């Protein structure tokens, strides 16, 4: 299944852009762009997504290399959380009033 925007009719491939806002933070998806190669994709990403010092590092990833879960598989892929609230800390109440727990 093609990534949205990645169609055969585009002259240049689609790249997804991830920007790290500061040291110590993850790269976060910022948007996408079209570019002929990775060097141009990086330069364009810098000009397009970091004009106000929004980042200290950029990843560009060819959209064609990204594998996505199928949104039409409605719920089948993601396990139902129903009845599994024991995966959350708030499920456990005996510790109420006890410190540092």
């Amino acid at each position: 299944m093609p990534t949205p925007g990645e169609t055969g009719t585009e002259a240049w491939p689609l790249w997804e852009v991830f920007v790290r806002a500061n040291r110590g933070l993850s790269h976060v998806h910022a948007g996408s762009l079209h570019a002929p190669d990775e060097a141009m994709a990086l330069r364009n990403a810098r000009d397009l997504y970091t004009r106000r010092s929004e980042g200290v590092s950029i990843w560009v990833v060819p959209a064609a290399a990204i594998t996505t879960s199928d949104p039409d598989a409605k719920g089948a892929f993601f396990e139902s959380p129903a009845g599994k609230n024991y995966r959350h800390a708030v499920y456990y109440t005996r510790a109420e009033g006890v410190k540092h727990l």
Partner: protein
Amino acid sequence: MVTTTAELAEDEDGRARFDALIAADQRIEPRDWMPDKYRRTLVRQISQHAHSEIIGMQPEANWITRAPSLKRKAILMAKVQDEAGHGLYLYAAAQTLGISREEMTAQLIEGRARYSSIFNYHTPTWADMGAIGWLVDGAAICNQVPLCRASYGPYGRAMVRICKEESFHQRQGFEILYELSHGTPEQKQMAQDAVDRWYWPSLMMFGPSDDASPNSAQSMAWNIKRFSNDELRQRFVGMCVPQFEALGLECPDKDLRYDEETGTWITGEIDWDEFAAVLDGRGPANAARLRHRREAHDDGAWVREAAAEYARKQHDSERVAV
């Protein structure tokens, strides 16, 4: 086209899911099923919006080389560069709906696509840079803030990014006018003339009045549009009133009045014939704007070809090396 029973069932499923998402005010994402008309409406609206950002660079680029100081020149370049970025965010959003950049560019330069009529006016003086920033970007912000919540995810996300950048555009325009209106009498007159030129066309940016805007209802039902054209226009006018005062300039609308009962501003008569004419290609600068865009596209062809060819060669030589 023959539709099989299976396809039909899938459409019904998809439609039910689409309707439920819209009813819950949730976002539609590119791979979700969506009605054809929803897709076409969005492609038209987003690509027109992108074209407006791109064409919108021209009236201001006109003054980059003649800005009154190095600081103003740097500011104007930054703003025009932002508008290029806005165009690119929006083209990318439209591309997720299946239309290619080439097709959109072709629609624009062949005169098959529309863009905001406001950019078909000339910018004869430096004060026009102030009036554009204050009024045109101001009106655009009014239109765009509600679009951040548009039901189509990529469009809303592009608008969030754009809105963050727009407030600087409006403020720098206001500041240009402020400096002029507090300068010599000649400078103040220049500011007033520019505001007189841009005020009415800015009000037209919100589109025809509600009773003459047949597609609005459907766009509102789809949560693409959140407020009617007239509502947004009134909101904008209300914000401008105290700003005129702060600038010490006069509002060209002599019939403007506040309606105590409804709590809204009622504008004087808007010249919708002028709006129709400019939209129809008969504005002062329509031909020049398109010609310039076409030439820029043609002149850049060799750069695009060279970049693609270089990428191909790099790719091939990597293959040989492995």
